[in-house]
């Protein structure tokens, strides 16, 4: 999470008025400030911090920092935010109020803040809200929702109304229906797979104790359901974004039956949008994505986007059971050899790479462009997704892979 010192200072200042005397009110205020900055914190963690306060000498600033960090933060991505907020909040030894008069909190976000927006949540709201007036109540803290990001990221803002509204609604509904149908088919297949498995001797004995140890009932070993995870990498540059949009909708409908769907969009750079889709209904989420993602419908650099993915996300998300679905026309403006290397890397990590290319639908299409050619050797399945039928076909293909 990228946060500027200004946004942190503002969030901290917002809660400075509710700081009181004593440890707990201060910790609560600090916790709320962090929460405002998008860090997930529970009341329990704050209380535990306060309980452990007498375990270290809080005059030792670094020990105190380690204490709060271990208690309040649970992923390393939040360390930078924490450190900044910590320095800002506990600027003075003891619990004196931080002199904030010097900060211009009424001002609008500066340009640099607007630009670093990206997929951050809550930073903008840190200015809008005036939490200083609220009183600190313990119950409130857990309910404090993280304000949603409403970025005014105007760069290359794409207007969805270009499509006929009726049309896209009808398709969206159809997509959801089909996805649900396929999803239930998947779970039914799993049920059948459970039967006819091997006998489990241990449980057979357990069950037959009531018959004095004579084997009457056999117990079958249940086959563990191994759910597959899908990672979706969607090209949203130029003509690709309407296809990507329907694909995301489709995968979203399927995701309950999968281990989970991680969704990324890329053009010149890569952004993770899973959290946006999770918290909103799909229409709103996509609306928001097109508003907030830098370079939506701009040029494409597939190689670099894949590199970002491989470096930052793949180690945590991609295992030998993950299916990676890429949707792109393969027109790459970047370094083709980089694309090839990254495809090779990706292929090695995951179970299957599916590449969806809408252009494949036209009969004359041959994957001649350099990017597509570089990627082809590392693709397990090369499919088209240009209409509803091809989406259904994709669903069935996935179904076979998952079952």
């Amino acid at each position, binding site marked *: 999470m990228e946060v500027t010192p200004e946004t942190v200072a503002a969030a901290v200042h917002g809660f400075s008025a509710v700081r009181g005397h004593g440890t707990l009110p201060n910790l609560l205020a600090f916790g709320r400030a962090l929460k405002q900055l998008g860090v997930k914190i529970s009341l329990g963690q704050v209380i535990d911090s306060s309980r452990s306060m007498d375990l270290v000498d809080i005059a030792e600033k670094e020990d105190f920092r380690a*204490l709060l960090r*271990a208690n309040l933060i649970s*992923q*390393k991505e939040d360390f930078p935010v924490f450190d900044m907020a910590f320095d800002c909040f506990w600027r003075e030894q003891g619990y004196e109020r931080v002199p904030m008069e010097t900060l211009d909190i009424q001002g609008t976000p500066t340009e640099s803040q607007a630009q670093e927006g990206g997929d951050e949540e809550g930073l903008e709201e840190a200015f809008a809200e005036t939490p200083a007036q609220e009183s600190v109540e313990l119950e409130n803290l857990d309910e404090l929702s993280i304000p949603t990001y409403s970025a005014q990221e105007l760069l290359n803002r794409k207007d969805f109304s270009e499509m006929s509204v009726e049309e896209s609604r009808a398709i969206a509904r159809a997509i959801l229906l089909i996805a649900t149908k396929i999803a239930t088919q998947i779970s039914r297949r799993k049920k059948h797979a459970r039967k006819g498995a091997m006998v489990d001797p241990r449980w057979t004995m*357990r069950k037959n*104790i009531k018959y004095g140890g004579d084997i009457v009932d056999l117990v079958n070993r249940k086959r563990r359901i191994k759910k597959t995870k899908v990672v979706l990498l969607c090209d949203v540059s130029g003509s690709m974004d309407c296809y990507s949009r329907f694909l995301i909708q489709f995968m979203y409908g399927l995701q309950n039956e999968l281990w989970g769907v991680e969704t990324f969009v890329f053009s010149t750079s890569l952004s993770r949008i899973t959290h946006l889709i999770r918290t909103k209904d799909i229409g709103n989420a996509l609306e928001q994505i097109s508003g907030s993602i830098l370079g939506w419908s701009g040029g494409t650099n597939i190689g670099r986007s894949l590199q970002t993915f491989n470096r930052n996300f793949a180690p945590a998300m991609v295992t030998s059971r993950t299916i990676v679905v890429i949707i792109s026309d393969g027109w790459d403006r970047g370094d083709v050899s980089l694309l090839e290397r990254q495809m090779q890397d990706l292929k090695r990590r995951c179970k299957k790479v599916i590449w969806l290319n809408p252009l494949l639908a036209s009969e004359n299409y041959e994957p001649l462009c350099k990017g597509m050619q570089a990627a082809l050797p590392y693709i397990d399945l090369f499919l088209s997704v240009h209409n509803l039928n091809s989406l259904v076909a994709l669903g069935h293909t996935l179904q076979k892979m998952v079952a």
Partner: protein
Amino acid sequence: MTGSNSKITYSEAGVNPKQLTIDEVQEILLKEQYVCDRSLATVVYLSLAMGKPLLLEGEAGVGKTEIAKVLAKVLNAKLIRLQCYEGLDANTALYEWNYPKQMLRIKLEEVQKGDKRVVETEIFNQDYLLKRPLLEAIISEDENPPVLLIDEIDRADVEFEAFLLEVLSDFQITIPEIGTIQAKHRPYVFLTSNRTREIHDALKRRCLYHWIEYPTFEKEYEIISTKFPEVAPNMAKQICAFMQRVREMNFYKRPGVAETLDWATALIALNRKGLDDNTVVETMGCVFKYREDLHHLREQIEGKQLNLDALLRSSPELRS
């Protein structure tokens, strides 16, 4: 390694973890050749003092598992290890009735015409219980609470995490036939994760958290000279400078401290006093485990992009 546990004996009496200071934690770990920086020592200290589980994350081979092992040793506590894997379930982690033994008992009583009710109660006592790591940690009667190491929690399924949450919040286990067993002394719990997936927030909230970074040049040097005093200072510096450099480079799998130590062991066995291009290429199997990475490294060395002499010259000056 799966689900197994081992008892490490320690000749001296264990230290009382509640009475340690941060400095002492650092010191006793160092005595067992575990070099840790102050922030890690603070977190370990807090975990011991608060009795709160500690979740350690970091790249592979930075010493996440090792710290639990070393702690068990210095506290003179039993180390109970639960190695997580996909499909790990409550039966393997908690307890299971020893059905074959129960069955034999029943058969025996049938022959001897024993009292049915007596048998019924007897086959459900602790003698017929197979204790898996979690139960073992809770049921332990040792004076020193055991160290419970739940290794690579990210490999277990999400369902198991939910189950673990229950155990870690109350430190009690209910067995229908016996009743609820409450831990006499809370075990010291360490969880490690390689981050192949995110751990659920609910579990994270129950734990203190620390991310172990790759060591700095100085720290890595300290680790080598602590573990292998026989390595010449100059070569130790070379090794560290080399490792620091390759971690910045674009390899598929970046090497951790475990690899550094393997490499140092190999170099000692080969009786080398310093690094040169040939030595590096010959022994690189200790550091890189992928063909592409080995290939990439050879290219870098042959192309002089990775120059050992230059590396050593540019390596930071060591304090003392």
